[in-house]
């Protein structure tokens, strides 16, 4: 069994987990505090939609980066193995 390869996959999982936490810190620091001094229900609703929207975009970027990381690693490993063989 290629243990180095397994450790690399575990490394990808660790990066994904850490970036998720960093994303949450970003949301907590910059998106959650967003407010507008108005008591209007509509304004509060729009602010809520904005917060959820921006957070969703961040989640999509996170998924995109996760996919890019896996794809890049996969093809590099596969091609590297055939070059060695």
């Amino acid at each position, binding site marked *: 069994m290629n243990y180095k390869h397994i450790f690399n996959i575990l490394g990808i999982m660790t990066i994904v987990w850490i970036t998720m936490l960093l994303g*949450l810190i970003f949301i907590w620091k910059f998106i959650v505090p967003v407010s507008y001094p108005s008591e209007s229900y509509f304004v509060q609703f729009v602010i*809520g939609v904005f917060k959820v929207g921006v957070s969703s975009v961040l989640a999509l970027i996170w998924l995109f980066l996760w*996919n890019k990381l*896996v794809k890049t690693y*996969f093809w590099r490993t596969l091609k590297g*193995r055939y070059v060695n063989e």
Partner: protein
Amino acid sequence: MSSFLNLICTIIGFALSFVITFALVPFLIRKFKERGIVGVDVHKPEKPEIPEMGGVSILISIIVTTIFLTLIHRDLMKFFATFLIVIVIVGIIGAIDDIKPLNPKLKPTLTALASLPIIFLGTYVPRPVLPIIGRTRLTIVYPLLIIAGLAVSTNAVNMLDVFNGSMASTCSIIFLVLLISSIILESEIGIILSAIMLGSLLAFYYYNKYPAKIFSGDVGSLTVGAAIATTAIIGRLEIITIVAMMPHIMNGFHSLVSIGGLLERRQIKIRPTKVLDDGRLAANEDPKAPITLARLVLAGGPLRENEIVKVFIILSAYSGMLAIFTALLIAWGL
């Protein structure tokens, strides 16, 4: 009194579901062989025929155990009822899919709709607790996330049910992690539901491990996927479940992205792996083949089927550890 009752329910839930599944599977193996309900084990050179739809044992054990626990723990009746309804609906969808394969777009749609009892019975709290952020308020978005979450979880588990014991072992780890996390976060319904599922899956794994004597079929994998999602929602373990399911998400997400949409397993012409003459499996080099977790693992070199499952178990155990860290971050208020 309540914590003592919870402990009793947890022990009974684990033991009863384990015993029912363990006793039921040999009977199902005989019956399915007699009736020709078998599937080909494609990852073995001799291509043996193995009884399918063994997941019926998991479904029956969950139904019996949950009904029994409802009689003991009346306070949690609403949660048990929700769990039961969702599981039965998804189990029926899985059984239909085993008998006559459903359209690849219809299956996730139906499993998504199976989440509606959670919304209608109101057994969710639209305030998921996240590490660092703390308690959030997603009153409008949360019901939509429930629908999406059930579809994703059921199909992600289904997509990783490709090798002998892969689904039962990885999902047993997920439920063990959910059990530990529920204890950390004091989610009594999470503890009991995880114990029920863990008992049933461990008993099933005994027969499903390499070389498999029975397959779970879609009835099993979809049911288990629905149980994970429902436990996460009503046990308030959403983010922990996402982290624990990382190998399943990697498998489903990357293969969907690489083939460009929803396709039934049987519809994918270029397989992600190939069986070598010596019985080992290797990654398919065709760029059009989906990047599944198995193909990613096999990129490091050919492996035997049981070795791939061992790697899946290592990856699940590691993501489970990260999930428990996540639960601790929540518990410590970080």
